[in-house]
């Protein structure tokens, strides 16, 4: 399941593989410990607060701010056709951070601190299916 997450497959199996289904349904989710309620993005199967291994996915806000970014000119395997591509790290309003590629709407020269949205995306079908998210432009007062 997890092998469909992201732009290429590196990790095939994970207890949080269900994130793929959530993204396919258009939901941006964090994990939530069902014992103590601690939330995490990126999702974790095991709670860093109380060590419980029971969790659920909860939908969270897509609202975020740009923390840093880089435009990559020397690509690793699987990204050769993308260069140059821009990768950003964002601080989520719901807590936690995400790394993702810039979507079409986010200008490459956006300043640090710029409001962005983390938007679920699906590409391909069958064996070629990929579920991921991109960083998109967000108007300051608009919601995700």
């Amino acid at each position, binding site marked *: 399941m997890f092998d469909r997450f992201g732009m290429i497959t590196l*990790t095939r199996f994970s207890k949080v593989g269900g994130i793929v289904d959530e993204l396919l349904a258009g939901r941006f989710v964090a994990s939530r410990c069902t014992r103590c309620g601690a939330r995490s993005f990126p999702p974790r199967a095991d709670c860093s607060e109380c060590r419980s291994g029971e969790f659920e996915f909860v939908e969270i806000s897509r609202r975020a701010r740009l923390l840093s970014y880089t*435009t990559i000119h020397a690509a*690793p*395997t699987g990204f050769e056709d993308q260069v140059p591509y821009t990768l950003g*790290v964002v601080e989520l309003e719901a807590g936690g951070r995400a*790394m993702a590629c810039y979507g079409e709407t986010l200008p490459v020269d956006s300043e640090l601190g710029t409001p962005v949205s983390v938007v679920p995306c699906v590409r391909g079908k069958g064996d070629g299916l990929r579920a991921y998210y991109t960083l998109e432009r967000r108007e300051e007062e608009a919601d995700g």
Partner: protein
Amino acid sequence: MRRVAVIGTGHGRFGVRKDATVQELAFEAYREAVDEAAIDPAEIGATWVASVPEYQKQRSLAGVIQEYLGLNPRPVWLTEAACASGSAALHTAWTAVAAGLYDLVAVVGCQKMTELETAEILALMGRVGDVQWESVFGSTFPAYYALFARQHMARYGTTREQLAAVAVKNHYYGARNGKAMFQKEASLEKVLSSAPVADPLRVFDCCANADGAACLLLASAERAKSLGGEVVWLDGLGSASAPMSVLRREDLCSLPSAVEASRQAYAMAGAGPEAVKVAEVHDCFTIAEILALEDLGFCAPGEGGPFTLAGETRTGGRIPVNVDGGLKAKGHPIGTTGVSMAVEIVRQLRGACGERQVAGADLGLTHNVGGIGQYCFVNLFRRE
């Protein structure tokens, strides 16, 4: 715990070594260390091999190295902490001697990075970070340091010229180190105009993959003193970790593992940054040297750029840094680097570095970072 000394150092030529296997590279450094210490290899109680395994076709390298050095049946294993693997081996060796398990041990850093095919290297480059949440979006090793650089520039006004000054300095010293990969100076213009890799970092902001080996022999105080002469002691060790994922780090303008490791090392050695006379810091990228200067307390946070541009990290400056060329010009055989740093500092403390020698060096520091800071080891060496 017993006090531990470095009694022998060996360092091979770094670069693209199309002449040798990784065990042949290791032997070059081992031979030099054993000859320098003038000990009988039969005295070596154990060996720790530092290498990042995935670059070599030979699996379980430690076994091959121990055999090729002729040190069976004494124990050996490999330590890995990415680019800080060498310091992990040194830490293991120090602990074994300090505990009293052995009186004399060897640390061998060795790495062959240029034997893989280009496709294999590109695949490895794409799996440097957390593969579950980061690498699947195309992150690379320079990309992480580019994220750090971008933040540092935004927060402190650090400039491209300041970053480039790190590379210019390190190439200046590399040109004076016969073991370096690039023994050639680089002008500010050349650094600034090199090809982009991960914006704002360019080719000359990045160190290069290299082949090469280095070796250290450690001994107990008693054995070290029996050899006569001045002794170089490993008196302060610091080692810490930070989240692998950049998504779990509080701040992108500092490596928390470096701050914590240096705190430990200074406390253990009973000396602060102001007492350090020469330092080897982990300049895998130019921004990394700037962060190191700040994390180690050589200058205030945000001051690393101006500090460098003012020449304070050159010989004659406040704290000479990477006067062997650093990872940038010496080359970065990743498993070897931590051992290579220690070799340079020990030789500086012995006054054996010729035109690169730092006058009056009696306390030296190594700062060795693994990956993007998930590991950091800081060590303090003292001549007495």
